[in-house]
């Protein structure tokens, strides 16, 4: 039952000084915990970043390997293109030389270039012109040369000249030829 005009003050075991000390320690502890959680979070983020970077490194390494293989492939293509270009140049020169070999009195109707040979179709006024002016330089180039003639309607001779270079003999003549051949085979 209530008898007093006023309510008694609230009693506390903890004095004002103790409250101050407790609040100070509480704030300190809260700050420490916050710092700990902040560092913990940062550490977690850092670990996550490391994992991401590692993953990216692996991906990049794979990409680099892929690119390296592509570079190698492209380099090989470049080499191939260069070789083809060189071959074409050589072929062009060979054809030019071939056409230089053909005298004005002989007319070529077809020329077939083989890997190790040359087949020429044409018209010559006579065998002698062919033998002296075309066959002689062909023999100096090719190891084996076969020629066949048949008459045309106007009395001139059509000819087919088949010329081969023997690889065995070529290797004997020049060791460097073998090396070049191996390279060609690889391609």
């Amino acid at each position, binding site marked *: *039952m*209530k*008898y*007093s*005009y*006023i309510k*008694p*003050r609230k*009693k*506390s*075991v903890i*004095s004002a000084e103790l409250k101050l000390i407790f609040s100070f320690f509480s704030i300190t502890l809260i700050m420490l915990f916050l710092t700990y959680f902040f560092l913990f979070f940062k550490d977690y983020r850092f670990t996550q970043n490391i994992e991401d970077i590692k993953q990216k490194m692996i991906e990049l390494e794979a990409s680099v390997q892929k690119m390296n293989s592509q570079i190698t492939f492209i380099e090989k293509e470049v080499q191939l293109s260069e070789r083809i270009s060189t071959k074409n140049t050589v072929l062009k020169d060979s054809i030019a030389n071939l056409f230089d070999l053909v005298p004005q009195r002989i007319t070529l109707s077809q020329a077939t270039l083989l890997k190790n040979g040359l087949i020429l179709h044409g018209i010559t006024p006579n065998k002698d012109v062919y033998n002296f002016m075309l066959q002689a330089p062909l023999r100096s180039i090719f190891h084996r040369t076969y020629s066949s003639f048949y008459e045309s309607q106007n009395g001139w001779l059509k000819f087919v000249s088949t010329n081969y270079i023997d690889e065995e003999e070529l290797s004997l003549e020049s060791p460097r030829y073998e090396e070049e051949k191996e390279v060609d085979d690889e391609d």
Partner: protein
Amino acid sequence: MLGKLFESIYSKVFVAIVIERSKSVVYIQISSKKHTPKNYHKSFEDTEFTTTMREYIDSFIGESPFSYICVLDYSEEQGAIPTCSTKDMSAFGDFSASKMMCHENDWAYYTSVSGIETIKKTYAGIGVDFIFSSFSILSSFFKDKIETQLGLFVLVEENYITVGVFDKMKLLFGEHLYVGHDNNQDEMMMDSSDSEIDLDLESSIDLDDIDTMSDIDGLDDFGDIEDLDAIDEIDEFSQSQDDDFLDEEDDFLVQGPSSFNEDYQRFTAIQNSVNRFYKDSKYQSKFIETVYIADAIGVSADLKTYLEEEMFFSVFVRHIDLGGEMIDLAKAELK
């Protein structure tokens, strides 16, 4: 929960400050669940709250965080009315500036809000937990009588008298009266010779008699009623039911030269108060036969004699330890 645990661990320190006419008494009780309560008290020759008093109190309240300071309200604006209803209160005065406390939804005691603030300000140094009204002290002290009987209950302090008419727990009338003297007058009396004291007493009695003659005349009507009652029966009643009061009466027979005058003034105040109770139509008037006095100062036998002879009351005096009673009230409120 935690508070209850701490309360059981720590002992409780109750401090009751009682201001008397020329001194203050500090009552201290240290109670714990394990040990019997320890009581201390010390008088200070000052009615103001001094540093020595504060140091004395601090030496006890420092022992436990559960310390309670109890003060009695000495405001002259306090009183009691026989209703708790705000509608009915207006018949007894304007209580807009008063703090009302309802007692068991039956009657209310009040004091001025400014009085409470003054007490709080006075004891701001140590703080106040309980401010008790003299009426709550009176009703608590005479609880056994109030519950069963109709009577006039009086709390006598050095400067104040608290008067309450109760009829089986129901308050019919309540007043708080100042009967203090000027200290200068007392000092003059102390310095005077014995013959001069006698003269002063006589003159004071004469003056008081003159003042109250009209009031006594007004009580003629219940003097007749007194004659109708069997006075012997009242005496028998008092002897059979209140033996404990008779034992206590022997203690207050020590009389000083000034106590005669003071007791007569107290008697006059009680007489006037009873007169107001009978005459004022606001109060439900009932015939009073018995007076119970809670004596906090050790009144002389004169007061009892006056009341018995002049007003034909059956008077019972019981000594009250105000400090202890305040501490008991504080304990009861904390439960």
